[in-house]
């Protein structure tokens, strides 16, 4: 069975936010101007969240963690959608069905990682910016929820390519936009069920942790904590 997962090495991550913008460009994220952002409505599927450290002495510090949809194996969002507009697929991707979403935003409030976003207004691209939109990703109308899809459209392309070339899918064929662009090479992606894959190997690292693990969501984004060996994030 294939189970797509991601590993983020926090010791390599420099919080440069290349992943944030790459995702926005890849997935036709609507533009948010100053007023939208002042109201807290800018959309980014992945964000660098400041993380409160525990009681770590008196020296001030700043920890930034990339947070995106964890594609949980037990997703709280899928349970609560009244119109079955969010589903968990066979390969472990939690998908959003835009034409079915009624915009009740229950999934956004149920997600403990707060990774879901909502289209508060109609998306608009001043001419000629709409020419830069990717045809692989549907543009969402206003009133529907959206979130990271692990660049599911790239999976479909990769599968098509592999089928065309008459070979199985290999590591590196399917990589989300954020993982592809990370300049510090801090993000890894692959099949957690394939023991030879990088992510499967890194998931066993002593530095590997998951966020909010105690909630039982079984997230498939695994973080490697900063530093030599295990310890706090």
């Amino acid at each position, binding site marked *: 069975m294939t189970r797509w997962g991601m590993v983020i090495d926090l010791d390599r991550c420099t919080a440069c936010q290349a992943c944030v913008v790459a995702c926005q460009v890849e997935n036709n994220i609507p533009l948010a101007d100053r007023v939208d952002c002042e109201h807290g409505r800018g959309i980014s599927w992945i964000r660098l*969240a400041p993380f409160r450290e525990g009681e770590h002495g008196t020296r001030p510090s700043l920890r930034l963690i990339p947070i995106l949809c964890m594609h949980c194996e037990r997703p709280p969002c899928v349970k*609560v959608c009244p119109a079955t507009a969010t589903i968990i697929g066979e390969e472990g991707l939690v998908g959003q069905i835009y034409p079915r979403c009624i915009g009740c935003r229950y999934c956004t409030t149920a997600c403990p990682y707060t990774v879901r976003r909502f289209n508060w207004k109609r998306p608009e691209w001043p001419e000629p910016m709409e020419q830069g939109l990717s045809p692989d990703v549907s543009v969402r109308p206003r009133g529907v929820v959206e979130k990271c899809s692990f660049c599911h459209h790239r999976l479909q392309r990769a599968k098509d390519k592999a089928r065309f070339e008459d070979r199985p899918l290999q590591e590196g064929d399917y990589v989300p936009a954020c993982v592809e662009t990370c300049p510090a090479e801090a993000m890894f992606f692959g099949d957690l069920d394939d023991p030879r894959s990088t992510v499967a190997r890194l998931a066993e690292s002593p530095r590997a942790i998951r966020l909010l693990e105690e909630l039982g969501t079984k997230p498939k984004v695994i973080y490697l904590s900063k530093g030599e060996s295990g310890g706090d994030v």
Partner: protein
Amino acid sequence: METFELGADKRLFAPIETTRPRFWVFAGILLTIGLWGGFAWWTQLRRGLGVTGLNIPVFWGLYITNFVFFIGISHAGTLISAILRLAHAEWRRSITRAAEVITVLVLFFGMACVILDLGRPDRVLYVIRFGNFTSPLLWDVTSVACYLTASTIYLYLPLIPDIAILRDRMPSRRWLYRPLALGWSDSPRQQRILNRAIAVMAVIVIPIAVSVHTVVSWVFAMTVQPMWHSTIFGPYFVVGAIFSGIAAIIIAMAIIRKAYHLEDYLKPIHFNNLGLLLLVMSLLWFYFTFAEFLTTYYGGEPMHMVVFLSKTEGRFAPLFWAMVVFCLVIPFALLANNRTRTKVWGTVVASVAVEIGMWLERYLIVVPSLSSPRLTMTAPSYVPSWVEWSLFAAFVSMFILLYAVFTKFFPIISIWEIREGREHSVAEVTTRVESYLPEVTHE
């Protein structure tokens, strides 16, 4: 077709038969507010939910607050009149109709609040077409639909005899009353069937009503968010609903009493008894709230404490402590005191305080947990916009308007229940009390 000798009960028909000019003024004002709300909604349809003050992460705000609030008030009528009926509380007779109308009307507005909140209201039927049975929102839809059906039936059944009276009294409106009266002739057989049906509905409606606000609470409790995921939410919400429902009845009663000169029917004793119930619910509400907060505080989990402190001493503190004052302090002061509770104004002031306080309580359940998500997000505070306030005001005014229109077509105090009380209940009660006591043997 018999004609009744109404005697003193003539007063109950006055609103239906005559309409004074000040009603039209009153209705005009309410309708204007309603139309303004319509404009607000049209703005929202055109421009999307961005016209509200909602943001990331506060995805729910006034609309969901109002949803819970209105559904809560709906526990007024049917629950109270059903419970009082089953408990053989005779003082209910003047109240039941007014209460039941509240329920039926406010349920519509409650459901409308959810539709307002949807990003795609044109797709609302997808919850039926593509329904997901693990979703508490779908349980909500089911439960509220059942409750609406049951309450409508429960309102309608006892209304039939009164409609029959009106059918006979007002030939000009026969087109309306005749079909609705279902050929009621007040025969003993019909009375037996009707009483049977009402008794059955009274029993059915109570679990449905309890389930309604329980599943509404489960919309929040079934997530894992701090200060939402609590086992106490089911009974807590039901208690809160009954609490705000009783307050709503008191206010409604006070208004119709004044407007239609029904002082003989709605006496201080009625307000007193409802006031006692309100007092009990206030203490019960306080018990649940205290248990909820003490448990959270004692556990001290960091992510929970952020929400907790934001309510008790942080940015929501003014609202929180206002809620405590409105829901506990003021009602207790007025209702525990015999001198104030036996006056109509005492219970009315307490009820108004309760409604404000309970609205704040709903707001404080929805917004603070969303404002402090587990994984920090800096976002501006949620401030409701003119659209949300306008729609709230419009809903309240349209509710009042529809209620008033109802009183223009149907008696707001159940005539036949009054008559039944006069004619049968006194004897019934005497017999019942005597059955509790040892037999009196005459020597």
